[in-house]
């Protein structure tokens, strides 16, 4: 009679989804503004630049972009799942606790002050965005805690206040910046997938993967937490430790994603809902599957973004919003019977 989630069932589903992801990634690597032939790619990089452009384009330009899109998509979707559970709010997205404005502030300060120097091959802007995001989350947590034992409402309010305040500072700085600095900031805030070098990708992949696995370990606790904190504590869940753990890791992986690609919206909000509609709210399944579909979605969106108005590119956030919206509505219409909270 039981329809419970077992490790075997979950593994099977995860493997299938990973296969889909791999297929999508390969397909997207072969799609782009220039035609390339696969045989030429296998010939290898060539001794000098320009000898084997098929290889350079596929491996040097497209592959890093596709990998980055996959990483960022996974991080954002995962973060959305966890935040929606902990905050018991279906409208929560990865940026709700102030990460967006914190990262944006870090970015504009870096752009205006023109600091240089890299760390791990990551640009100073990325580092600044990461630092801004982490500091802001810590600030929001501290304010929420300070004003009343980090209850959910206090945290959300603190997030709103911090976002507003930092947003105002960003506006001020934008108004005094040079025009290309302004454009750079706005461009960054819109969210973009660009080519990064391998060390950056490797480090980000490790961080994001570690985050996803850590968050997976508390998923069964998240299930209980959606029933309320008192209920969860009655079921043996240490809610304070769980919340701290959840916020810490989601802030970390979101900050990594944001520092690499700016603020890409929609993924963290919609993918958890879409997967939940089809597979149900059990977080032990919701989290890994959402992460994979977050990757698939963003890889596809980015490929569209760089091919649809070639040779120019659209910011990937435009595609995620335009494509995500109707897609989600269609899903909702089909599965509306299953959705409890809409009633």
């Amino acid at each position, binding site marked *: *009679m*039981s*329809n*419970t*989630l*077992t*490790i075997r069932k979950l593994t099977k589903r995860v493997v299938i989804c990973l296969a889909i992801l791999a297929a999508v990634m390969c397909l997207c690597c072969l799609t782009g503004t220039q035609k390339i032939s696969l045989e030429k790619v296998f010939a290898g990089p060539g001794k000098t630049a320009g000898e084997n452009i098929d290889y350079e384009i596929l491996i040097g330009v497209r592959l890093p972009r596709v990998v980055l899109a996959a990483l960022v998509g996974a991080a954002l979707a995962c973060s959305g799942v966890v935040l929606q*559970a902990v905050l*018991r*709010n*279906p409208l929560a997205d990865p940026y709700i606790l102030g990460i967006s404005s914190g990262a944006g502030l870090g970015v504009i300060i870096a752009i205006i002050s023109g600091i240089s120097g890299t760390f791990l091959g990551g640009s100073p802007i990325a580092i600044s965005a990461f630092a801004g995001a982490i500091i802001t989350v810590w600030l929001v947590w501290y304010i929420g805690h300070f004003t009343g034992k980090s209850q959910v409402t206090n945290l959300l309010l603190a997030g709103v206040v911090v976002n507003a305040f930092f947003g105002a500072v960003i506006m001020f700085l934008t108004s005094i910046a040079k025009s290309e600095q302004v454009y750079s900031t706005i461009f960054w805030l819109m969210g973009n997938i660009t080519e990064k070098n391998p060390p950056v990708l490797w480090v980000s992949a490790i961080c994001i993967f570690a985050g996803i696995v850590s968050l*997976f*370990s508390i*998923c*069964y*606790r998240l*299930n*209980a937490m*959606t*029933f*309320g904190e*008192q*209920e969860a*504590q*009655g*079921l*043996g*869940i*240490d809610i304070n430790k769980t919340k701290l753990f959840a916020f810490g890791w989601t802030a970390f992986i979101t900050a990594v994603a944001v520092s690499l690609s700016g603020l890409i919206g929609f993924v963290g909000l919609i993918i958890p809902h879409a997967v*939940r509609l089809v597979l*149900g*709210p*059990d977080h*032990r399944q919701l989290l890994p599957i959402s992460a994979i579909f977050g990757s698939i979605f963003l890889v596809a969106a980015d490929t569209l973004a760089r091919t649809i108005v070639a040779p120019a590119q659209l910011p990937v956030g435009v595609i995620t919003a335009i494509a995500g919206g109707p897609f989600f509505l269609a899903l909702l219409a089909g599965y509306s019977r*299953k*959705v*409890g*909270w809409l*009633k």
Partner: protein
Amino acid sequence: MSSIIEVKNLSFAYNQESILNDLSFDVTSGQFLTIAGPNGAGKTTLLNLICGILNPAGGFVKIDGCNVKSYSIKKLAQKVAVVRQEFVPPFDFTVEETVMMARAPYLGAFGFESKADEEIAALALEMTETIRFARRPLAHLSGGERQRVFIARALAQNTPILLLDEPTSFLDMKHQTGIYDLLKKLQLEKGKTIVAVTHDINLAAQYCDKVLLLGADNYHIGKPGDVFTTELLEKTFGVRIFAVNFGQEKFFIPSGKLAKPAGPNRTTSFIPDS
């Protein structure tokens, strides 16, 4: 039989307003205790103090011989299960999934249930007669059915003590009695200790072994027959009570100022003794 719950000199205040003052009582293992009293007397507060959600200002609560504070959250959840008012959570978990969550205090690192856990959950569903809608989302059930699911969850938690906070407040008569029957069954067949907060003193009196009547600044504890007297109830609840004898039982009906007059005597038999 030992006391499984021991409350001694318990005091608690919300913002300098004292709710409980020097409260002491015991619950022996396998007993059915009802906590009754007017709104604001501190019934829910007392329940929250017993299950460790709140910390007492004075005195202590001991579960199975050890102070509540000394238990880890996980270990306490293996001793005490709490059932509160039913509700629909923001995400649509099915009945099965909801009940299965009760196994959380016993699970390992990533929280996957074993066959044994599944069987315990299935048994809980059977006992509460909720197994026929095991795969339905909570939102698709009636209030009474949902309350039984929450009780099934507490059952699946496999604890010796069950605390319930007004489990039948919004339910119809059939479901009210259904739930009390279930609780009594759990006490008699499984030896569970039941502590239930209720507004319905008549229903409670039919099932419980002991009752704790919490007043604004006093309390009385004892058998229902001893504690539920017209004078004490009138004093505690501050309303005129109309007592009715029915066989060996006494029932109490509140009588408002504008209610229809019931008769010249305060105590009237409606149905002849059999």
